[in-house]
C-alpha cells in the first residue's frame, strides 16, 4: 500500500514536470509556450542581451544587434544590424529558436512570417524591468536565478544609496537624455533610480517616461544638479536663459562618457552600476559645494 502511494505521489509529481512547458508573456501581451528552453537565441536589444548574459545564458546567444557591446562575450558574437535595419537574412541563417526584440520593431512581422518565434521586451520602468527579467528567467529555465539577480540588483542600488552623505540628498536633479531636450522623468527607470538615491527629479512622471521639454521648463524648474551624456555637447550655459540656472551657476553638472551612458540608459543587470554612477555624481557635486561654502 505504502509503495503504491509512493508511486502515485511520484506520478503526481512527475506529470506536471513533464508537461511543464514554460509559458512566457511578452510585452505585446502575447502568450507562448516553450517545451524546452531555447538554446539558440538572437537578441536585438542591448539591455536584453545584458540580461540574458547576467542569467548565465550568454552561451545560448548566437547573434546580437550592432549596439550590444556588453559583456565582452556578446561583443564577439555575430552582429545582425540595428533594431530598425536588422538583417533578416543573417538572422535566419543563424537558425535561432527565438528572437528577442522590442515592441515596435518592424522586423518582427517579417521574422514571424518566415516561421521564427519572436518575443518583444521593452522595459521603461523598474517594474517593467522586474517583469522582463522574470519572463526571461521562465524562458531560459532560470527562474531562481532571475529572482536572485533582481534581489542582487536591488541590494546594489541600496548599497549605493546608503553610502551617500546626507548633504547629497534632496537635490533637485535634471537628467537629460538628448539635447533636444529630452529628459528622464520620475516615471522612467532612470528617474526611479534617482528617487531611490534620495534625489528630487524636476521632471514629473505625469509627462511620460522620456518627455520632450521646452528649454524654458528647465529654466523655471531651476535644477540644482544636471546630469547628461557627453554627446549632448552643446555648452549648457550658451542655451538662452540657462546661465541663471542654479546648477549652471555653481557648475554642478555631471557629464557621462558614452560607456557610462550605456550603463545609465539601458534597463538591465548593470542597474547597480548605474545607481553608483549617479550616486558618485551626487556625492561629488554636493561635496564640492560644501567645500566652496
Amino acid at each position, binding site marked *: 500500500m505504502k509503495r503504491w502511494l509512493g508511486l502515485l505521489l511520484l506520478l503526481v509529481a512527475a506529470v506536471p514536470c513533464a508537461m511543464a512547458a514554460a509559458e512566457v508573456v511578452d*510585452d*505585446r*501581451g*502575447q502568450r507562448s509556450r516553450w517545451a524546452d528552453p531555447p538554446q539558440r537565441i538572437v537578441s536585438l536589444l542591448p539591455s536584453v542581451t545584458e540580461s540574458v548574459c547576467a542569467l548565465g545564458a550568454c552561451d545560448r546567444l548566437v547573434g546580437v544587434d550592432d549596439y550590444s557591446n556588453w559583456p565582452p562575450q556578446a561583443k564577439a558574437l555575430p552582429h545582425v*544590424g*540595428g*533594431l*530598425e*535595419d536588422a*538583417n*533578416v*537574412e*543573417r538572422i*535566419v*541563417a543563424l*537558425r535561432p529558436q527565438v528572437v528577442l526584440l522590442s*515592441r*515596435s*520593431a*518592424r*522586423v518582427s*512581422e*517579417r521574422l514571424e*512570417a*518566415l516561421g521564427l518565434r519572436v518575443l518583444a521586451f*521593452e522595459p521603461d520602468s523598474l517594474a517593467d524591468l522586474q517583469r522582463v527579467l522574470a519572463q526571461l528567467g521562465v524562458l531560459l529555465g532560470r527562474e531562481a536565478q532571475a529572482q536572485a539577480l533582481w534581489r542582487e540588483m536591488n541590494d546594489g542600488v541600496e548599497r549605493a544609496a546608503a553610502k551617500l552623505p546626507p548633504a547629497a540628498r534632496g537635490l533637485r536633479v535634471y537628467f537629460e537624455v*538628448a539635447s*533636444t531636450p*529630452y529628459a528622464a522623468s520620475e516615471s522612467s527607470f532612470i528617474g526611479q533610480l534617482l528617487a531611490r538615491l534620495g534625489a528630487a527629479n524636476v521632471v514629473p512622471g505625469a509627462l*511620460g517616461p*522620456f518627455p*520632450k521639454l521646452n528649454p524654458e521648463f528647465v529654466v523655471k524648474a531651476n535644477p540644482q544638479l544636471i546630469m547628461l551624456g557627453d554627446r549632448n555637447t552643446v555648452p549648457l550655459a550658451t542655451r538662452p536663459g540657462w546661465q541663471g540656472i542654479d546648477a549652471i551657476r555653481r557648475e554642478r553638472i555631471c557629464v557621462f562618457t558614452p560607456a557610462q551612458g550605456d550603463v545609465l540608459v539601458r534597463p538591465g543587470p548593470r542597474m547597480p552600476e548605474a545607481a553608483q554612477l549617479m550616486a558618485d555624481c551626487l556625492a561629488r557635486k554636493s561635496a564640492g559645494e560644501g567645500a566652496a561654502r
Partner: protein
Amino acid sequence: MNRAGRISLVAGAMAALSLALLLLGLAIGSTGFEPVRLGGSDPVAWQIVWDIRLPRTVGAWMAGMLLGLGGALAQGLFRNPLADPYLLGSASGATLGVSLLLVLIGAVPAAGTLGLRLGMTGAAFVGAVLAVLITLAMARGVQQTLRLLLAGVVVSMVLGAAASLVVLWVPDIMRAMQAFMLGSTAFLGWPAVAVMAGALLLSLVPAVVLSRALDALTLGEASAASLGLAMPWVRAALIAALALATGAAVAQVGLVAFIGLVAPHLVRALVKSTHGALVLLASLMGGLLLLAADVLARWLLAPQELPVGVLTALLGGGYLLWLMNRGSR
C-alpha cells in the same frame, strides 16, 4: 530606325537588364553566394534564397514599377515635369499613419495586437489613401489642375507636420520612423509582392487605356476637352490609378526617393514617345532603377546593408543632374 522600333528596343533592353539584376539579386546577400550553392540540400539556405532574397528582389522591382508609373501619371496629369507621385499627399499621409500605429503599439498593449494585425503596411496604405481623399475634397474634385496641385502641397505639409508632432511627443518611435522615411526593401515577403503585383495590374491598365487623354492634356485643358474626351471621368480614373500605385509602393517599401521623378525623365531622354508607351517604359525604368539600387544596397557594404532610399536619392539625383547638364550643352 523608326520610333516604334526604338521604343521596343529600349523596352527590350530594360527588360533584359531587369532579368539579369533579378538573377543577381538571388546571389547577393549578407550570407554571400553560399545559400545558392547549397540550394535545396539545406532548408535554411532554401529559405534564404526563396523566401527572403527572391521576394525582396521581385518586390523591389514591383515597387519601382509602381513608382515609375506613378511618376509618369503625375507628370502627365499636372503637365509639370517636376511632379512626383507623392504630390497628392500620399507620402505624408503614409508617414502619419505609420507614426500613429507605432504610438498605438507602444501605448496600449491591447491595442497593440489590433495594430499588429493591421501592420505597418496597412497603416501606411490607409494613411496614403486618406491623404489623397482629403486632397481631392479640398480641391473640390479633380477638375482644376492648379487647385489640385495646391491642395496636394497643403495636405502634404499639414500631415507631415502632424507626423513630426507625433514623433516629438513620443520620441520612442523616432528610430522606427526614421527607418520608414528612408525607405527599405529589406522586409518584403511574398504577400507584399502579391499585393504590389495586384496594384500594378489595376493601375497600369487604366493608365495605358487612358493614355490618349494625357497626350491631349499636353495641348492644354481646353484643347483636351474640345477633342471630345470625357475629361472629368478620365481624370478621376487616372488619379485613382496614381493614388493606388503610390499608396501600394509607399506602404511596402516606405518613402523611396526620386524613382518616380527620375524614371519618366530618363525614358524621355532615351526615346520620344506618346504617353501610351511612356507609362509602360517609365514603369520598366522605375523597376530597373529600384532593383539596381536594391542589389547595390546589399552589395556595397556587404554583409551590412545601406538603406535603399539613400541610394536612390544619390544615384537618381546625380544622374538627373548629369542629364540636365548634358542637355544644356
